[in-house]
C-alpha cells in the first residue's frame, strides 16, 4: 500500500521529470482528435501533392531550376504544412491554456515549474510535428520527388522551422488577455502573406523586388530552401545556406526565450 510518505516522496519527482508529465498530459488531451490528426496528416500531403504538384506541373512542363516542378515544390510544401501547424499551435492552444482551459494554471498548482511547462509543451509539439512531417515525407518519396538519400533531413528541418514560427507567436499569445480578433489578423496579415511569398510555388526571384524582403524574414522560405538542398541538392552559395540555418535558429531561440518569459510572467503574476 502507498503511504502518505511515499506519495510525498513521489511528489518531488517533478524536479526532474516535470516536463515529461506536461508532454504526457498534452498527448493525452490530443486523444480526442487523434483521428483527425492522423487522417489529415495522411490526406493533406496526398491532396496537396496531387493538386499543386502533379496537376499544376502540367502548366510548367519545363520544370524549375533544372528539376521537374513536382520535385521543386514537394519539399517546400512539406515545410509549408508543418510550419502552418506550428503557427496554429502557437496561437489558440496557448491562450486557451491560460484563459479558457486554464490547463497551464492547473499544472502550475503542482510542483511543475513554468519552464517545465514550456519544455513539455514544446516536446509534445515536436512529437506531433515529427509524426506529421514523417507521413508527409513518406508521401513525397512515394510520389518520386526525393532524388537524394539526404532527403529525410526535411523532418528535423521542418521541426526547427515550425519552432521558429511557433515560439514568437506563443510568446505573444501567452501575454495577451483575450482574443479580440488578433489571431485572425495575424493569420491573415502576417502568416498568410508569409506563406504565399516564400518561394513555395515559384522562386522568389519572380516576386517584385520591393516584396522580396517578405521571403527573407519568413522562416518558411529559409526552411524550404534547406529542404530543397536536402531532397534534390539545390545549389547555392554556402553563406546563404548558413544564413538559412542562422535565421531559423535565431527565431526559435529568441522566440523561445520570450515564450518562456511570458509563461513565467503569466503564471506567477
Amino acid at each position, binding site marked *: 500500500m502507498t503511504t502518505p510518505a511515499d506519495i510525498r516522496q513521489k511528489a518531488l519527482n517533478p524536479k526532474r521529470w516535470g516536463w515529461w508529465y506536461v508532454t504526457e498530459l498534452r498527448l493525452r488531451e490530443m486523444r480526442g482528435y487523434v483521428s483527425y490528426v492522423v487522417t*489529415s496528416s495522411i490526406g493533406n500531403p496526398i*491532396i496537396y501533392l496531387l493538386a499543386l504538384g502533379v496537376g*499544376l506541373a502540367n*502548366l510548367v512542363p519545363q520544370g524549375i531550376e533544372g528539376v521537374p516542378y513536382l520535385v521543386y515544390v514537394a519539399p517546400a510544401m512539406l515545410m509549408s504544412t508543418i510550419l502552418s501547424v506550428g503557427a496554429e499551435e502557437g496561437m489558440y492552444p496557448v491562450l486557451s491554456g491560460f484563459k479558457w482551459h486554464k490547463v497551464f494554471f492547473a499544472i502550475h498548482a503542482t510542483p511543475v515549474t513554468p519552464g517545465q511547462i514550456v519544455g513539455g509543451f514544446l516536446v509534445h509539439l515536436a512529437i506531433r510535428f515529427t509524426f506529421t512531417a514523417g507521413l508527409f515525407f513518406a508521401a513525397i518519396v512515394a510520389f518520386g520527388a526525393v532524388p537524394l538519400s539526404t532527403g529525410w533531413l526535411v523532418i528535423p528541418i521542418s521541426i526547427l522551422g515550425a519552432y521558429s514560427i511557433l515560439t514568437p507567436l506563443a510568446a505573444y499569445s501567452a501575454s495577451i488577455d483575450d482574443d479580440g480578433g488578433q489571431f485572425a489578423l495575424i493569420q491573415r496579415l502576417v502568416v498568410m502573406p508569409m506563406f504565399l511569398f516564400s518561394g513555395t510555388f515559384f522562386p522568389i526571384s519572380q516576386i517584385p523586388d520591393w516584396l522580396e524582403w517578405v521571403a527573407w524574414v519568413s522562416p518558411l522560405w529559409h526552411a524550404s530552401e534547406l529542404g530543397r538542398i536536402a531532397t534534390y541538392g539545390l545549389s547555392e552559395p554556402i553563406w546563404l545556406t548558413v544564413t538559412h540555418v542562422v535565421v531559423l535558429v535565431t527565431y526559435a531561440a529568441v522566440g523561445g526565450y520570450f515564450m518562456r518569459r511570458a509563461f513565467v510572467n503569466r503564471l506567477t503574476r
Partner: protein
Amino acid sequence: MSAVVAPKSRFGGLSGGNAKAVIERGLRATMSNNYLIILSGFFEPVFYLFSMGVGLGAIIGNINVNGAEIPYGAYIAPALLAVSAMNGAIYDSTWNVFFKLNFGKLYQTMLLTSLGPLDVAVGEITLALLRGGVYAVGFLIVMQAMGLVLSPLAILAIPAVLLIAAGFASIGMAFTSYMKTFQQMDWLPMVMLPMFLFSATFYPITVYPEGIQFMIQSFPLWHGVELIRMFTTGVVTPMIWVHLAYYAVMLCVGVVVVSRRLRKLFLD
C-alpha cells in the same frame, strides 16, 4: 399596458417578422468591434492573386479557356473570387452559427424576444451575403486595377458571388443543424480543401482523366468557378445554364432542410 406590440407569429411560430433587427445588431457589433477583422478578410484572396497570379503567372504565361488565350492571372482571379465566396459562406453558416448557438449563446438571447428562429437564420445569412458582396466588389476593383477584368460582363460576377454564397450558406446551415460537437466541424476542411484545390482553380481540369473530371464536376465549387470565370473573361457558353441550375437546386435543398430543422436547432 405593454411597451411592445405583440407580433403575429408567422410560419407556425417560427418567425416574428423582424429579421431586420438581427441584421441591425450584426452591423452594430461590427462597428463597435471587429471591422478591422472583417476588412482583413478581403486581403486573403488578394494575396493569393498577387502571389500565384504574378509570381507563378510569369512562369506559366497564357492559358487556354474555351479556345481563348488569357493570362494566368486572369484565369485564377475569378476562381479565387468563387473560393472566397464559398469560404466566407461556409464559415458564417457553420463555425459562426455553431459558436453563437452553443457558446456565445447569442441565439438563445435573440429567441427570448419576439424574434423567431426564422428571423435569426434569415438575418444572419443576409449579413453573411452582405459581407460577401462587399468583398466581391473590392476584389473586382483589384482585378480591374491589375488589368485582369477582360469583359464588361464582369459586373455580373457580383450577383453570381451572392448566388454562390447563398447556395453554400444554406447547405452549411443544414449541415450545422446536425452537428453535435466542435470536433465534428474539423472534418469540414477535408471536404473544402480538395474542392478548393481541384475545381479548376489553378489549372484546367482537362489535365485529369475523364472519370476524375466528372467527379470534380459533380461538386459545387467547380460550377461556381466556371460561372464567375465566364463573366470576368467574357467567354460565355451554354454551360452557364447548368451552373445556374446547379446553384438553384442547391439553394432550394438547403432552404428546405434548414426550415425543417429550425425547430430542432433552436427550440429543442
